[in-house]
C-alpha cells in the first residue's frame, strides 16, 4: 500500500495503480492463522438471497440428519414409574418413585442408580425436593407423608424417614413452597402443611371431589393451582381460607404446571388429548389450545426458560410445544416406550426425562439435533447462523416440508388421521346446520371457548 502513492513524473500527471503488499494479506509464519480480509459491499456478494436459501436448505437437511434425541434409558424399577422429582440444587440428580412404593435416586451423568429405598406400601403418588435440597417428601397410597434425607444413610444405619405424618385419606399429589417450610398435598381436599406440625394448617374443599395435582406458583409464592376430578381447575391463595376461583371444563385435567418465567400463565394437560394454557386472570377462555396428541395427556413440565413445554401422553409419545403455538414442534417415541406417565425438563434446558409404564426412565435431548458438549466459538457461531437462516426461510415450502417431517408409529399416524377426519366432519356438519337454520340461532363457537363449561368465583 505504501508503494502506491501518487507519483509526479516528467509528464506532470498524477497516477496511482492498485499495488498490494502481499505481506498484508498472507500470514507471517505457519503458526499464525490465515488472514481473511473482508469487504461487505453487496456488489461483491451477488445472489445473496439464493445463496442464503441454499444454506438454509442444507442446514435444515443436516438438522434432520443429526436429529438423534434418545440418549439413555435408566432401568432398575420393578414397576411402572409413577412420579419423578428434579433436585433443586444438583443438575445431575433425579428422584423417581414407582408403583410398588420404591423410590430411586439417580446420578444422571453416570446414568446409574445411587440409592434405593422402599418408601411406601402401594404407589408412590407424589414426590418433591425441598428448596434447600437437603431432604425430600413423598406421599403414597398408604395415607402417609414422609420426609427423607437426601444423603444416603451411613454404613450400618437403617433407611428411615426423618418424619412421617399419617393422614386421614389417600394423598395423590404434593408440592413444596418455594421459600418457606410449607407444603401442600392433595387428595380428597387440598391441605397446606407446616413442616413442624402433624396436622394441616389449612384445608380447602370446593364440592366433594378428589384432586389429582397441586402446584405452587413459582413467583407469587402464596398462590396454588390444582386439578380436581370434577373437571375443574381451582386456584387458591394460601393466606385465605377459601379457594379463589375455578374453571370447569368439558373433561378432566390431569396435571398442571406454571410457566416459570411468565408465572401468570399455567398449562394443564387434559383428558381430551389437548393441553390448555390459561391466563390466571382470565379463566373464561384459554390463551391457547395445544393440540396434537392422540390420547389423554398425562403430565406436563415447562422448560426453565418458559418458552417451551413438554407433555407426556397415554399415546406413548412425548411432544414438545412452543409456549405460543397450537401445535407441537417435536415428537419423541420409541418402540419400547409404553404409556408415558411422568415427564420433567431438566434445569439446564438441555434434557428431557420421561418415566413410563414399562419401568424405565428415558433421557432425551431437548433439541434433537443439538451437539452435546462444549462448542468451540466457531462452531457456536455456525450453529447460531444456521439457526437464524432456518428461521428466515422457515415458510418456504421445501424447507418447511423437510423440517416438519417426522416418522410416527403407524398406530399414532392413523389415529391422528382419523381424528382429523372426525374433526372435519364435525365442522362440516356444524356449517350445514348453521346454513339450514334461522340466522343467529347457531352461533360460531371458537376452538378456545368450546372446551369450557363455566367459571365459578
Amino acid at each position: 500500500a505504501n508503494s502506491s502513492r501518487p507519483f509526479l513524473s516528467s509528464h506532470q500527471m498524477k497516477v496511482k495503480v492498485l499495488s498490494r503488499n502481499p505481506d498484508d494479506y498472507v500470514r507471517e509464519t505457519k503458526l499464525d492463522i490465515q488472514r481473511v480480509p473482508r469487504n461487505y459491499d453487496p456488489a461483491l456478494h451477488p445472489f445473496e438471497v439464493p445463496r442464503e436459501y441454499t444454506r438454509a436448505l442444507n442446514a435444515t437437511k443436516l438438522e434432520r440428519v443429526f436429529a438423534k434425541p434418545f440418549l439413555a434409558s435408566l432401568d432398575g424399577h420393578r414397576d411402572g414409574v409413577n412420579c419423578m422429582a428434579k433436585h433443586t440444587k444438583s443438575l445431575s440428580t433425579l428422584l423417581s418413585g414407582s408403583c410398588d412404593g420404591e423410590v430411586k435416586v439417580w446420578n444422571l451423568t453416570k446414568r446409574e442408580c445411587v440409592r434405593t429405598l422402599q418408601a411406601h406400601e402401594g404407589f408412590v403418588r407424589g414426590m418433591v425436593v425441598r428448596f434447600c435440597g437437603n431432604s425430600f417428601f413423598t406421599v403414597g397410597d398408604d395415607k402417609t407423608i414422609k420426609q427423607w434425607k437426601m444423603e444416603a444413610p451411613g454404613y450400618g444405619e437403617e433407611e428411615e424417614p426423618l418424619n412421617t405424618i399419617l393422614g386421614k385419606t389417600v394423598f395423590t399429589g404434593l408440592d413444596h413452597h418455594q421459600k418457606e417450610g410449607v407444603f401442600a398435598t392433595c387428595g380428597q381436599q387440598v391441605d397446606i402443611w407446616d413442616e413442624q406440625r402433624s396436622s394441616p394448617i389449612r384445608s380447602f374443599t370446593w364440592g366433594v371431589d378428589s384432586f389429582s395435582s397441586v402446584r405452587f406458583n413459582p413467583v407469587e409464592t402464596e398462590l396454588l393451582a390444582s386439578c380436581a376430578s370434577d373437571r375443574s381447575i381451582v386456584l387458591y391463595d394460601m393466606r385465605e381460607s377459601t379457594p379463589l376461583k375455578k374453571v370447569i371444563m368439558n373433561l378432566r385435567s390431569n396435571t398442571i404446571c406454571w410457566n416459570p418465567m411468565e408465572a401468570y400463565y399455567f398449562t394443564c394437560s387434559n383428558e381430551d388429548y389437548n393441553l390448555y394454557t390459561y391466563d390466571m386472570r382470565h379463566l373464561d377462555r384459554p390463551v391457547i389450545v395445544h393440540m396434537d396428541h392422540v390420547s389423554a395427556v398425562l403430565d406436563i413440565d415447562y422448560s426453565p426458560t418458559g418458552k417451551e413445554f413438554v407433555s407426556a401422553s397415554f399415546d406413548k409419545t412425548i411432544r414438545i410445544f412452543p409456549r405460543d403455538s397450537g401445535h407441537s414442534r417435536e415428537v419423541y417415541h420409541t418402540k419400547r416406550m409404553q404409556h408415558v406417565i411422568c415427564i420433567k425438563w431438566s434445569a439446564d434446558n438441555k434434557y428431557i426425562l420421561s418415566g413410563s409404564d414399562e419401568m424405565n426412565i428415558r433421557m432425551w435431548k431437548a433439541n434433537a439435533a443439538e451437539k452435546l458438549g462444549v462448542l468451540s466459538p466457531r462452531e457456536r457461531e455456525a450453529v447460531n447462523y444456521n439457526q437464524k437462516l432456518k428461521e428466515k426461510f422457515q415458510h418456504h415450502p421445501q424447507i418447511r416440508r423437510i423440517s416438519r417431517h417426522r416418522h410416527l408409529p403407524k398406530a399414532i399416524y392413523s389415529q391422528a388421521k382419523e381424528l382429523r377426519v372426525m374433526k372435519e366432519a364435525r365442522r362440516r356438519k356444524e356449517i350445514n346446520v348453521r346454513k339450514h337454520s334461522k340466522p343467529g340461532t347457531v352461533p360460531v363457537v371458537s376452538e378456545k371457548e368450546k372446551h369450557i363449561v363455566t367459571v365459578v368465583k
Partner: protein
Amino acid sequence: MASAVETAVKDSHVEKKKKPSARYWQDSKEKGKTENKSQNEAENGNKRKANKRKLKGDQRGGKMVLSGKSDPFPGPAPLPEERLQKFKRREKSKLPNRKRRKLRDVVARSEVVSEMAQKRAAQFDLLLPEEAGFLEGDEDEDTCMISQEDIAEAVDITSGAKYFNLNLSQFGPYRLDYSRTGRHLLLGGRRGHVACLDWQSKQLMCEMNVMESVNDVKWLHSESMYAVAQKKWLYIYDSKGIELHCIRKFNDVLCMQFLPYHFLLATASATGFLQYLDVSVGKEIAAICTKAGRLDVMCQNPHNAIIHLGHSNGTVTLWSPNQKEALVKMLCHQGGVRSVAVDKTGTYMVTSGMDKKLKVYDIRAFKPLQSYFLPAGASCLSLSHKGLLSAATGDIVQVYKDVWSTAVTKPYMAHRVRGTVWGLHFCPFEDVLGVGHGDGFTSMLVPGAGEPNFDGLDANPYRSSKQRQEWEVKALLEKIQPELISLDPDQLCHVDQASYEQKHKERVQALGFDPLAKEKFIPKLKKKGRSSSGNVERRKRQVAHEDQRDMIRTSVEDKMKIEKEIKKQERKKEALSGLRSALDRFKK
C-alpha cells in the same frame, strides 16, 4: 499532557515528531495557556487538572469519564448518508396493523436488526485498507494521450511490471480469460495454442497445442480446471494440461460463459444452441435451440446469471436455463450485434453493433440511456468492477469512464496493440486490462479499473491451497440450483402474493383436474323400486332445485329491486311534471 511532552523532549532522541498534532477541538489560546501553566506549576498537577476539567466542562458538555477528561467525540461516529445507502438492502417495510400483534412485533424487531447490520457494515467500510487507483493529467493534457510506457515508468516497480507484451505471432489471434481471483491467466490461440500462467509472477503452469482450432477458453470455478471450445467438441483440461473430459454433447461451441455461483458452464454454438453444463456433477442442465443462427456474441449478467446473446439481426436476447424461449428480446442495433457487456451490479448493458454505434441500456427497465457513434465500430467490449468500459476498434483499445451517467466525448485511455484485437478482459481486483490480439497478448495498466478491497471468503488472490480447498467445499455446498435463475435474483425473499384464483388455476393445471369442483350428481341406479324413471327424474329435479334455490332467490330479489327503482323514478317524474290527469287516481 503538554508538560509531559516538554519533559520528554529533553532526554529523548526522537524529536518533535512525538508531539501530538493539534486537533481542531483544542483551542489554540487555551493550549498556550496550559503550556505556560505547566511551566509554572509542574508539581501542582492536581490543581491544574481540576482547572482543565472546569475549562472543558464550560466549553462543551462532553461526557466525563473516570480520568476526568471529557470525550471530544461523544456518541458514535457519524456515518455519511451515501455510505449507508450502499449497504441498504430494501426499503423500510410498513408495520402491519395493530391487531396483528405477533407479526407486528416480528417485523419491528427485524427492522431494528437490519438497520443495525446496515450501520455496522457501513462503519466497517471505513476501515478498508486499500484505495482505488486514478489517473489525472496536466491542466491541458488529456489522459488518453498518456502512453502506457509513461504510466509504467511513473508507478512503482511491481505495478510497472504489470504492463507487458507477449509476442506470440505464430498461433494467434488470442482469446483470454482471467480466473475469478485475478491471479491466473488463460490464453487460447486460434490455431491451437493453449497456455495458462500465473501472470503476476509470470510462472507458466502449462502450455500445449491442441492441434485444432480453438474458439474460446474459460476458467471453471477455480484455477485447477478450464474449458476449451475446440473445432468440434468441448474439452476440459486441468491446470497441468491433462485432458479430463471431452464432452461430445457440446459441439461447435463458439463462446462460453461460466456462472460461478451456479457451477454452470453456458456455451453458445455455431448451430444456434445454447447449452448449460453443470460442472459439479457433469450433467447437461438445459439445451435450448435459439433458432437464431450462429451464436458468437455472448455475455452473462453477473447480478442474476442471465445469459445475453447478440444476434446478426441486431437483437439481444436474454436467456435462463429454465425456459425454452428467450426471456427478453431487444432490438439494439440496425446492423448485427458485435459485442455485449453487462456491468457488475446488473444495472447497465453496453452493446456495440455493425452500425458503428455503442449503446448503453438500463437493463432493469430495458431503456436506452446513451448512444455513441464510433467511427470504426467496436469489436470487443469489457466492463471492469469499477465500471470502466474498454472497447476495441481494430488494433486500438480505448477505455471510457462513466459511459452511462454522462455523454462521454473523449476516451479515458487509449492504446494501440500490434494486431487486431480478438479478446478483451479486465483483471479482477487489479488495475489491469488484458488484450488478446493477432500478435500475442498485451497486459495494459488502467488505473482505477479494479476493486481495491477483495473479500477473502469469496475470491482471495492471496489464498493458499488449503484455503482454496476449503473455499471449494463451501462453494459446492452452497451451489445455487439452476431453477433459481431468474431476472430478479431476490425474488425468493419476496412474499408470493399470487391471488387465490391464480394459485387455484396453477393447481388445476398441475393436477389435471379441479379439486374443488363440485362432484356431478349421479343418481345411483339399481335400487329396489327406486330406480323407476319417474323417481330418478324427480330426484334429479330435487337436487337441481336445491342448487337453483339460491340463484332463483337472488334473481327474484334483483328483479324486485329493479321494479322498485323503476316505480320510484316514475313517481319522481310525476312529481316533477306535476301534471295529473283525471285517471291518475285509479293508478296504484
